[in-house]
């Protein structure tokens, strides 16, 4: 038997000056199931709350409705109050007669009062259908996974580890370090990138709380916040890590040759290799695609084997296989980084065929002292020092027709940095930069840009380049100086294209594996653009660095720290409380069609096989089941369900229809 108490709040004059609160209370007194109805000056005050608690006892109320402000304001206050009165906190409803009534209908007292009565009746009708609900609990695995071993992943892992939690870094290449390891200098301070990165790499590898899992791929993520089961594929290195001392003899003797990806294919590397000298772990892997032995095995032969012969530790193991294992984590940080746009889509820039038209990352390797040219800036074609260099910004960025529509944020600064490096290395070389806008909204950035022009004498030309073509040994760059309003041609020795930042090519697949959103371009989607920049819509999974969108190193490090704080906050709890307003599926009604599985954005619904007795036989059939820990309570499944088997706790079909009916009955 429902026994509802209604409490109408004046909120001082906020409600009382427009809505006749006494009349509302009086009207409700005669409404079905209401056994007690009063009005009071301030319901949320201590005396107000005591009024409710006493009434619950006195009138043996089992349900409470408060007509006052927005539930977004005080729902939790009154739920706590009701709980103190000995009721289940979910046997409570609020009617919003302030924000939705008195404040927006000033001067229309009669209509506002009528509306307040309607809203109160709706709340009563709903509360009569409310059920007692209990918050759930789930345990927390106090260990985090960071996917990606670039600066974002390293920083997030260090921050988590320094807070005392175990953390694993999963990296798919043979070494941590990421793109930052390829970069020569960093703007705007011109710090040597390796000099600031490698200490962090060493710290991560030697930290007692950090475990590196390199040369490994993420295969599957199951579970939910606090309890993720992650399947990892550790790729065969063909080198026994426990035996290898990292002496490097194998690499010097290997006759195999492959393009050196780390050096942007500007030189070759052996088939057994570490990506770069400071690699961590500093133990090589065999690239089976270019290894003579593995290649010959495909043809049924078995040649070479030099590395095994020269290895003093006997660490080479040609028979090693991929290993697949499952690890448990409480939280995951995605730090998978970015990739560089491929400018070969531009026919007008030569489809990537001109050797002296290079990308920004190419240049970083060219100018790096440990790069293929030992830091001498020379043309890839003839190894001569360029006398005129043209840089082109926004290549692939801000180009919805042929590239990406967004601004890549970093190119303005890295182009300016590269221009100053050219001027430092080759003072006789002229540098022109074609730009559309110069975007320098970082600390010290605009000052750096101005120094580039004023002190380094780099010439900026506002306009997009229309064509680059080979003219003998040189290149002709055709642009417009749009400030002069005149087409210009520059005879250049080398052109550097500031290629856009784009998501990793398998970003979408990665997002699907871990169950997070991604945008049209493939960047992972944060929970809220302003207020949830490192969270995702999947509880327990956080974002760090450029996997979420183009970002420079300072922003990446800041975001990694933010993600780490969120992870630590989560891991500091022993148990997680779960909202009981989740979906439930009645197996008796469920036809097992599986439509709800497809619409659930949280992968919270799965089909399971149940056995039941029917006409004396045991039959098994499929029904959908909700994992309450994953369900966030949106209700998409309830509307999709054709047999009305799915229902959302606290917003059930019966509850909402009762509200609709209560409103409509007052029309008469």
């Amino acid at each position, binding site marked *: 038997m429902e026994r509802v108490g209604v409490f109408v709040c004046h909120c001082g004059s906020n409600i009382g000056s427009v809505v006749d609160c006494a009349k509302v209370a009086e009207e409700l007194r005669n409404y079905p199931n209401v056994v007690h109805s009063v009005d009071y000056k301030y319901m949320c005050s201590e005396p107000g709350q005591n009024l409710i608690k006493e009434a619950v006892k006195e009138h043996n109320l089992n349900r409470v409705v408060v007509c006052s402000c927005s539930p977004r304001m005080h729902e939790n206050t009154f739920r706590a109050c009701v709980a103190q009165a000995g009721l289940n906190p979910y046997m409570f409803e609020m009617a919003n007669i302030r924000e939705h009534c008195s404040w927006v209908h000033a001067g229309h007292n009669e209509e506002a009062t009528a509306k307040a009565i309607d809203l109160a009746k709706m709340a009563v009708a709903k509360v009569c259908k409310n059920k007692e609900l209990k918050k759930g609990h789930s345990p927390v695995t106090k260990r985090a996974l960071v996917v990606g071993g670039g600066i974002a992943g390293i920083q997030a892992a260090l921050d988590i580890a320094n807070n005392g939690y175990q953390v694993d870094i999963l990296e798919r290449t043979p070494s941590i370090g990421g793109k930052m390891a390829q970069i020569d200098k960093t703007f705007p301070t011109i710090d040597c990138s390796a000099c600031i990165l490698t200490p962090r790499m060493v710290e991560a590898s030697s930290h007692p709380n950090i475990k590196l899992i390199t040369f490994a791929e993420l295969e599957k993520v199951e579970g939910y916040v606090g309890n993720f089961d992650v399947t990892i594929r550790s790729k065969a290195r063909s080198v026994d890590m426990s035996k290898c001392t990292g002496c490097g003899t194998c690499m010097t003797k290997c006759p195999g040759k492959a393009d050196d990806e780390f050096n942007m294919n500007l030189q070759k590397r052996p088939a057994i290799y570490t990506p770069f000298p400071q690699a961590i772990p500093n133990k090589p892997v065999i690239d089976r695609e270019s290894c003579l032995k593995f290649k010959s095995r495909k043809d049924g032969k078995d040649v070479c084997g030099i590395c095994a012969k020269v290895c003093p530790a006997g660490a080479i193991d040609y028979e090693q296989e991929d290993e697949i294992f499952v690890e448990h984590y409480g939280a995951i940080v995605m730090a998978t980084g970015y990739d560089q746009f491929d400018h070969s889509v531009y026919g*007008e820039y030569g489809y990537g065929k001109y050797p002296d038209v290079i990308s920004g990352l190419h240049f970083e390797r060219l100018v790096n002292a440990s790069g293929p040219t030992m830091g001498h800036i020379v043309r890839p074609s003839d190894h001569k020092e360029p006398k005129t260099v043209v840089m082109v910004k*926004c290549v692939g960025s801000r*180009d919805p027709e042929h*590239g990406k529509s967004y601004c890549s944020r970093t190119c303005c600064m890295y182009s300016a940095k590269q221009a100053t490096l050219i001027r430092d290395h080759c003072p006789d070389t002229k540098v022109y930069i074609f730009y559309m806008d110069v975007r320098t909204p970082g600390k010290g950035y605009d000052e750096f840009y101005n120094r580039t022009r004023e002190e380094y004498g780099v010439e900026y030309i506002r*306009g*997009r380049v*229309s*064509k680059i073509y080979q003219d003998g040994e040189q290149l002709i760059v*055709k642009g*417009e100086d749009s400030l002069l309003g005149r087409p210009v041609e520059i005879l250049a020795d080398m052109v550097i294209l500031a290629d856009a930042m784009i998501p990793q090519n398998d970003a979408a697949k990665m997002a699907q594996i871990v169950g997070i959103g991604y945008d049209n371009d493939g960047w992972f989607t944060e929970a809220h653009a302003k207020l949830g920049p490192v969270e995702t819509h999947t509880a327990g999974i956080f974002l760090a660095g450029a996997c979420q969108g183009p970002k420079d190193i300072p922003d990446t490090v800041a975001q990694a720290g933010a993600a780490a704080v969120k992870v630590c906050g989560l891991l500091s709890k022993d148990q997680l409380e779960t909202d009981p307003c989740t979906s439930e599926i009645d197996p008796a009604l469920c036809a097992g069609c599986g439509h709800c599985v497809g619409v659930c954005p949280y992968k919270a619904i799965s089909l399971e096989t149940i056995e039941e007795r029917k006409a004396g036989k045991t039959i098994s059939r499929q029904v959908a089941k909700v994992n309450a820990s994953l369900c966030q309570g949106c209700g998409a499944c309830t509307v999709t369900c054709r047999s009305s088997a799915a229902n959302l706790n606290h917003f059930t079909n019966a509850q909402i229809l009762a509200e609709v009916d209560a409103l409509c009955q007052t029309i008469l």
Partner: protein
Amino acid sequence: MTLQEMQNQELRDELFLRSQVDVTKCYQCGKCTAGCPVAEHMDYGPRQVMRMAQMGLVEEAMKTKAIWLCATCETCSTRCPKGVEVAKVMETLRIMAKERGYIAEKNIDKFNNIYNTIVKSLGRMYEPGLIVSRNVATGHLFQDTSYGIPYLAKQKLNLVPHKPKNSEEIKSIFAKAAAMDEAERGNR
């Protein structure tokens, strides 16, 4: 005069309706002018013409030489990062300018007129006629006539113009097309 007084929304709308190109998409990067083979001979580059169109200074755009000098090579439209069909805007401006009697490039206009007149009456181009009529019209009496003799010698010029069997049909196409253009102008 203030900018507001110079801006003409009606002409901006007409340009959009007839070209079906949204000039507001242009972000003035200058790639069109940079690649335009004629830009260096223009009074305003294609980017500047687009700017005029964008700002509602269509009247001014119609008076440029640029819209007449455009060779319709479509390099600008092909390379535009925003997918703006610049060449189509130039062509539409040229047609609109001609209707209003803004002829910034008299010789090009005369060439077009003579070309159309010949096609209208003969159904096909008659190149000696085109050259001679153009020279008479532009006052450059002997331009290109030096090519005439070798052309004849090489049997490359036909001195007797082609007579199509159905010249009435061609004339009717000209008349109906003109009526269709006119109707579109009226429909605005």
